[in-house]
């Protein structure tokens, strides 16, 4: 996801310096496979590699992992160093990872469709399941994600869906369909918000029309545009960040929302995934092909998948994690959407990368916003 986080980034020089040291320290580590071969197939990794000679750099959204994770991972895994750098959006992470030159990043947290795009560019190291025994903690459903069936090059970290968050006391009947959002009842007129980010702006209209969230057909997008423009006069506004607050104050009575952002623990706030279905978004961990510390990178991911670390995300950022052992540890408050089951989530359609066609959605968003 691209939730806005405080933009902060360690100077690239630090990462580069770290990498230079790492390269010097473990130059002979993967000598068996050789560089040329590694670009085509998975590197030969040694389960008994000496991790104390490896150091890893991880890029992640601010506040998305426990603060003390680097120290704890370092102590637990016996690696030389775990360094965290931050990105505030997927786009920034992609810019970092695809920039020419050596970025020195071993593990990256990006959303599923971006992991897919990186894999298509040949930039990811395939996941070596034998080095991540904690993969067994994942729900079986978590291996059936359409951007990466079988978790060949990514490991899911958090997942969720999009639905309608609404005021039970201010609506005559609970919404059931995306059409209730697009063409609201009289009591909700001008008290509805939709998201502004392209793919989620289009989602309600796509699903209401029975289309795939991943369509790139021009005639589909034209129909979506027509529907979104028809909905616009009934909206309070477009909002990605404060819709929960607007709902609490009663300024809005019905909003398009991510599950983790719908304050259902409040008395009068309800949540529904409309009957036409919705999306399934996943934030993942990937290992870069360029990493020179792949054993340590696998060990790091394995450590994140341990129940006590992975449950932190559910408890502290309010997103569900695809880890059964971790979710079993989490105390789920009354009414919390952490209780949505993996089977229910899997009914959502995964958003996948559309390549060049993604600009069609950018244009759609501009057209809808610019229309009076």
């Amino acid at each position, binding site marked *: 996801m691209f939730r806005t986080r405080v933009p902060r980034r360690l100077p690239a020089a630090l990462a580069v310096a770290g990498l230079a040291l790492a390269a010097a320290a473990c130059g002979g580590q993967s000598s068996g496979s050789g560089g040329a071969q590694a670009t085509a197939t998975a590197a030969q990794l040694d389960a008994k590699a000496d991790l104390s000679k490896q150091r890893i750099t991880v890029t992640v959204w601010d506040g998305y992992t426990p603060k003390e994770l680097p120290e704890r991972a370092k102590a637990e895994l016996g690696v030389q160093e775990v360094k965290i750098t931050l990105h505030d*959006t997927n*786009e*920034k992470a*992609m*810019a970092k*990872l*695809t*920039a020419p030159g050596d970025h020195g990043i071993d593990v990256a947290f990006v959303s599923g469709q971006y992991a897919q*795009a990186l894999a298509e*560019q040949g930039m990811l190291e395939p996941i070596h399941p034998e080095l991540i025994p904690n993969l067994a903690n994942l729900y079986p459903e978590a291996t059936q994600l359409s951007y990466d069936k079988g978790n060949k090059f990514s490991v899911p970290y958090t997942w969720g869906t999009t639905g309608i968050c609404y005021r039970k006391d201010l609506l005559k009947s609970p919404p059931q369909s995306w059409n209730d959002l697009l063409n609201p009842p009289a009591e909700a007129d*001008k*008290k509805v918000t939709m998201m*502004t*980010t392209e793919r989620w702006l289009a989602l309600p209209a796509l699903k209401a029309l029975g289309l795939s969230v991943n369509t790139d057909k021009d005639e589909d997008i034209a129909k979506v545009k027509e529907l979104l423009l028809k909905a*616009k006069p009934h*909206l*309070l*506004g*477009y*909002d990605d960040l404060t819709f929960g607050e607007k709902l609490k*104050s*009663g*300024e809005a009575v019905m909003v398009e929302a991510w599950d983790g952002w719908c304050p259902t623990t409040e008395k009068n706030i309800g949540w529904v995934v409309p009957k036409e279905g919705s999306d399934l978004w996943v934030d993942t961990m990937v290992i870069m092909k360029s990493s020179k510390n792949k054993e340590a990178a696998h060990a790091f991911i394995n450590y994140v998948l341990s129940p006590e670390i992975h449950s932190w995300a559910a408890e502290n950022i309010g997103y569900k994690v695809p880890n059964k052992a971790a979710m079993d540890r989490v105390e789920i408050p009354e009414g919390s959407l952490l209780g949505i089951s993996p089977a229910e989530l899997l009914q959502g359609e995964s958003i996948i990368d559309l390549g060049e066609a993604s600009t069609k959605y*950018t*244009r759609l968003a*501009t*057209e809808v*916003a*610019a229309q*009076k």
Partner: protein
Amino acid sequence: MTSTSTRPAPPGGRPGPAGGAPAAARRSRRLAASAFLGPGLTYLLVFLLIPLALVFAHSVFRRGRFGGVVYEFTTENFTRLIDPLYLGVVVDSLKLATIATVIALLVGYPTAYAIAHLPPRWKTVALVAIVLPFLTSFIIRMFALIILMSGPGLINRLLGAELEMLYTDGAIVTGLLYAYLPLMVLPLYSAIERLDPQLREASANLGASAFTTFRRVTFPLTLPGVMTGCMFVFVPSFGNFAVPELLGGGKSLMVGNLVQTAFLRERDYPFGSALALTLIAVLLVLLVVQAKAARHG
């Protein structure tokens, strides 16, 4: 935000080289001049010209697959601008900025006129009151407007009404006006203040009505102030992105929003640069017109 505007130079007072100063004195004066100018010029050179050059350069390259810039010459960023979609946004921005400027002038002129005719002690009080909002953060002032204008907000509660105020174009104009009205009042005040009262007396003595005096004497003489004030309001309004985002609810786009989206969301630096250059070009044309008019005035 208004750094691109130029204030008319204060009249008179330039020390001419009359009398042929000795070469040594001239040299030391030149030294002093560069010492005074140096820091400011260096600052502008580094933080204005270099980024501007980068914007120029980026605008003729291609966007990379995941953002970033591919160094391959293209003009498509500019041809994309001719699209009615983007031209429409430019026209909308011009419209909103013009409305805000005209209202600011209609409200600001009488205010400035009244302040200029207050007794000195009250003058200071009034001027401080005009500048006071500037001591508060822009974002906080915008949120104050949100609290006032929102559906369950203060105004509706006081009136017992359900007026739709927030997230409309009216709210955007209100926000722009609130943010930049002082920038209209201050140059108008200094123009009106400088006006010799005897001119108005003469006009009255020659039989002109109060309105004719205003129309034929006061207003023409304060025209440079009017121009400056209008530029000070128009320029930051035209390129604004925070006000349409916060008070417009994302339902209207201004050029500033397009630039912001291109850079921050799409990571399309080349197209964002082309948009930014368009913005700069429009404002430069206006500044030249204003400077020309001011010189004639």
